[in-house]
């Protein structure tokens, strides 16, 4: 394997090394296929992890507005996880521009580095159900997925068993149970909230199902509860692809990882109408290079994968590759956020955990309860929402007054509860990405124009979420309840989905049920791009299950010499 990696022809070229790219690399190389993984960013080292670094060791202690680096990342700093500790994992916005209509802001928050967003993702991991896969059949809006829960369930099993998801089974059909490691513990306030919600409303509150392991699992150590996962983890206790799937792939000896390889387009062989590889820019030398493969698997992140396809017009594929339906780029979704409520639970008097005490980087989850059956059908919106939140004692820097009494009040803390909604984002064809005819990135690759708004359904859904959030907190005995009811900027949920949706009918979808472009038999979009609808659950677990299912199908086709 000492030869130039660009002189070989690979069985599969995987674009991206994050949650889905890592799985594609692992699954295909472990099946014996020769795989090349192209990652646009640099390599990552555990030496960069800063989860145990106290704030005062940073020059500006991550205070908003301070630090020249912020001028390089005016969009990325909108992300809670982009900090003075780890900003270099996030893209430099000046090198990676995109445009939006003036009245339709979109926050595109992303990383370019081996592992992608798995380095600092939120780790919440939920299965979709047939309420989601067959949502159109329930309410008539949009399209059903071409797959059912039963078809995807075995692949959820595979992913969960490898990744390690801590959580609790609840038997609620809106949120199917999985294979869980022992759940993290709830605080007293959360146990009380759970009991109160079951009793007063029949609603399910469960501990967050998280890709943080609570016992030794696949050679990784259990969580040590330092609480700041987004800065890395010395014990690899949360799932991050460079130290799990990508590592497994490289260990097979069948996988080559090329970092700093920014893919611009898919190369097509016009004689066969098949892809022959991809063209990429070597970020280090700025040279344009090609790599050859028998199949091309896009796992670059929904919008980035679609951008590559849109930038791959050639021959009969005049409006991008795989766009005979005209739907490539359309149906962009991102969960609506913004509604919620917070307050105090004065009936609990616990003091906050000391700074060096255990901190749980996880919370509680309120399972969807709207439009789940005939009896919960809503008159003014379709689909539903779930809440993430937490309750517990926190230091009370907002205490009134000054002097010794203030210092004491800060330490004494305040017992707070807060929940925030994630609502379904409807797939609409007028929410789309296209190539901006004028704008290019720092490597000369045409950039995206992103046009998305949350519509009336998302607004109605968030309004309802705000009302029911307040109602639930009140029922739990909360005081000083603060209700939030605005709808956040699209992109801020960091759950971009759609733009190359799957389906059985080539005129109404871009890929088939196995993520293969209807128009090109050896090109695949195996990330969030293929989503038909968004559900309201955090989508990464589902993306990974879809990738494994699609890879297994591809392996089968290789075995049958169909590719």
């Amino acid at each position, binding site marked *: 394997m000492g030869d130039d990696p660009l002189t070989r022809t690979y069985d599969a070229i995987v674009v991206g090394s994050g949650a889905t790219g890592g799985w594609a690399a692992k699954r295909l190389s472990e099946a014996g296929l020769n795989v090349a993984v192209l990652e646009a960013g640099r390599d990552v080292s555990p030496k960069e*992890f800063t989860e145990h670094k106290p704030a*005062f*060791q940073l020059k500006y*202690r991550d*205070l*908003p507005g301070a630090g020249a680096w912020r001028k390089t990342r005016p969009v990325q*700093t909108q992300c809670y996880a982009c900090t003075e500790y780890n900003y270099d994992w996030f893209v430099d916005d000046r090198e990676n521009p995109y445009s939006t209509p003036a009245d339709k802001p979109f926050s595109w928050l992303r990383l370019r580095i081996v592992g992608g967003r798995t380095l600092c993702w939120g780790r919440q991991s939920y299965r979709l159900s047939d309420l989601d896969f067959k949502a159109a059949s329930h309410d008539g809006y949009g399209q059903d997925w071409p797959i059912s829960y039963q078809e995807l369930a075995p692949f959820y099993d595979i992913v969960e068993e490898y990744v390690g998801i801590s959580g609790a089974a609840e038997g609620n059909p809106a949120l199917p149970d999985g294979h869980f490691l022992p759940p993290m*513990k709830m605080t007293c306030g*959360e146990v009380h909230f759970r009991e109160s919600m079951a009793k007063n409303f029949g609603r399910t509150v469960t501990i967050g199902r998280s890709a943080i392991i609570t016992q030794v699992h696949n050679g990784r150590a259990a969580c*040590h509860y330092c609480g700041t996962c987004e800065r890395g983890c010395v014990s690899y206790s949360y799932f991050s692809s460079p130290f799990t799937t990508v590592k497994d792939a490289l260990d097979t000896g069948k996988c080559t990882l090329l970092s700093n390889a920014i893919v611009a387009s898919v190369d097509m062989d016009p004689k066969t109408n098949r892809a022959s590889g991809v063209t990429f820019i070597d970020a280090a030398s700025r040279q344009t290079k090609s790599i050859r493969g028998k199949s091309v698997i896009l796992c670059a992140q929904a919008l980035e994968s679609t951008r590559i396809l849109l930038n791959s017009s050639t021959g009969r594929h005049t409006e991008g590759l795989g766009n005979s339906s005209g739907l490539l780029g359309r149906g962009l979704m991102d969960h609506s956020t913004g509604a919620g409520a917070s307050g105090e639970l004065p009936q609990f008097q616990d003091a906050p955990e000391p700074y060096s005490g255990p901190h749980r980087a996880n919370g509680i989850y309120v399972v969807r309860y709207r439009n789940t059956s005939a009896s919960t059908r809503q008159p003014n919106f379709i689909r539903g929402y779930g809440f993430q939140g937490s309750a517990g004692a926190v230091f009370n820097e907002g205490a009134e007054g000054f002097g010794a009494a203030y210092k004491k009040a800060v330490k004494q803390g305040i017992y707070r509860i807060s929940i925030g909604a994630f609502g379904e984002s409807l797939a609409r064809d007028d929410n789309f990405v296209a190539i901006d005819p004028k704008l290019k990135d720092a490597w000369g690759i045409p950039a995206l124009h992103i046009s998305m708004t949350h519509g009336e359904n998302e607004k109605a859904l968030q309004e309802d979420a705000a009302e029911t959030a307040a109602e639930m907190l009140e029922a739990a005995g909360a005081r000083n309840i603060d209700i939030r009811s605005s709808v956040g900027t699209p992109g801020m949920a960091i759950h971009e989905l759609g733009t190359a949706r799957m389906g059985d009918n080539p005129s109404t979808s871009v890929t088939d049920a196995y993520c293969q472009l209807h128009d090109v038999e050896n090109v695949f979009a195996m990330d969030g791009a293929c989503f038909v609808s968004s559900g309201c659950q955090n989508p990464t677990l589902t993306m990974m299950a879809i990738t494994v299912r699609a890879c297994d199908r591809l392996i089968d086709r290789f075995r049958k010499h169909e590719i």
Partner: protein
Amino acid sequence: MNRRELLRNSLLAFGAAASVSIPAEALVFASGDDASRELARPDWKPLFLTAQQNATLLSLSETIIPATDTPGAKDALVNRFLDLVLSVLAPETQHEFLDSLTWFETGAMARYKASFVNLSDGEKHDFLNLVAWPQTHDRWEEVDAGPEGHEHFERMKRWIATAYYSSPVGLKELGWDGWPARGIFKGCEHQPDEHADAK
């Protein structure tokens, strides 16, 4: 939402609004670096504040977060950290900060005919008591403060608390012991139904 998040949200716009040249910064951190050591240098000089402003801030911060059985704002070098941060913040934020700081200097002169730093401890407490509580500002007439005095107090307190509770001294106050490993999160250990009276 904690104070840091509040601050972060309220000030986000400044990061986004600023444009300009590319900074030549190291891209990968040396994880052993400890920037707080710079603040403790014996030859420290303010980058942004005048000597008088620095003295007022020092005095105000120690009144808001005094040394008790644990060290206060002065020992935490709150003034030095805020001076460093202010030196790189957007002009609007700098002006806001100085407005509020100056309000205390002017107010002290009007009420006590003395600069803030020269007030006795009792006078400083008396002065802050007039603006520290949301319900007292309508009785604050002598400097014609109105609710404005309370807003200046709250703003200065936010900055001072943020600097204090992120300093080595402040983190120790909150139970930082220097060890990275935290133990197991135990959560609620009550028996079922023990929360039944919690409503």
